[in-house]
């Protein structure tokens, strides 16, 4: 197992590459899901209030 992580002495470079990829792609994924979710929630709140607002204003 230690041999696997050592990667013929290049472990630092290889695992740094994979680590950076995980951080970048993970963050991008989280940010994208979150933005899609929060905007959808805001829209749902607005739309839930929408049908009543014209009536109350009349």
């Amino acid at each position, binding site marked *: 197992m230690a041999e696997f992580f050592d990667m013929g002495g290049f472990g630092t*470079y290889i695992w740094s590459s994979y680590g950076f990829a995980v951080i970048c792609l993970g963050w991008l994924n989280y940010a994208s899901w979150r933005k899609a979710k929060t905007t959808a929630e805001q829209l749902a709140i607005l739309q839930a209030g929408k049908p009543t607002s014209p009536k109350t204003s009349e």
Partner: protein
Amino acid sequence: MFDYFANPSRFMRIANRILIPLVILSLSTGAIGLYLGLFVAPADYQQGDTVRIIYIHVPSAWLALFGYVGLGLCGLFYVVWRHPLADIAARAIAPVGAVFALLTLVTGALWGKPMWGAWWVWDARLTSMLILFFFYLGFIALANGFDRAERGSRPAALLALVGMINVPIVKFSVDWWNTLHQPASLLRSGGPAIDSSMLTPLVLTLIAAHAYFAILVILRMRALLTERRLAALTLRPGVD
């Protein structure tokens, strides 16, 4: 055909339907590809185990480049037809493409140091890739640099179009100039120049990266379209 798909709600309906299959495709090909790449594929006879960086470096580079082609096409559609969906798609692609370009540069540096002895060289391939990254950043800055988002759309689309000049330069830099970077191994005349033990994981991780890119773009487009609707609703008098 363009008119059919250019309807935002129809486009999003189709996009949402393929989202789950894309997640499954990305996870399965990514997992198998990385397993084969890290555990099964042999070390390179010249580069040793550092060759395993290829399974992130090459897919990232392809997506950074393909993403830019997408950005440029969206720019063209926006400049010529002024279609808002092209603007939304471009705004969704840009940050994803920028991250893939950054990933290409960083993994390339981490591969270059042990193999070339330098983190960075002003080589044609590396420099043109850095310029591609700057075009992405420029697009993001221009698209979001105005009080009303829509005002930035046209200058950003024009910038995206100008940046298209750089795409063939990135691709063919290794053939046009004497670069330290190795020439193309996959898309070359005469077929791929990689042994199948390394080619299979590479193709799988390429598929995974394409699917992952598509997932992120769909999610960001969904958020941007919802944002536009929110803005339209809150601006309409009598709603708030």
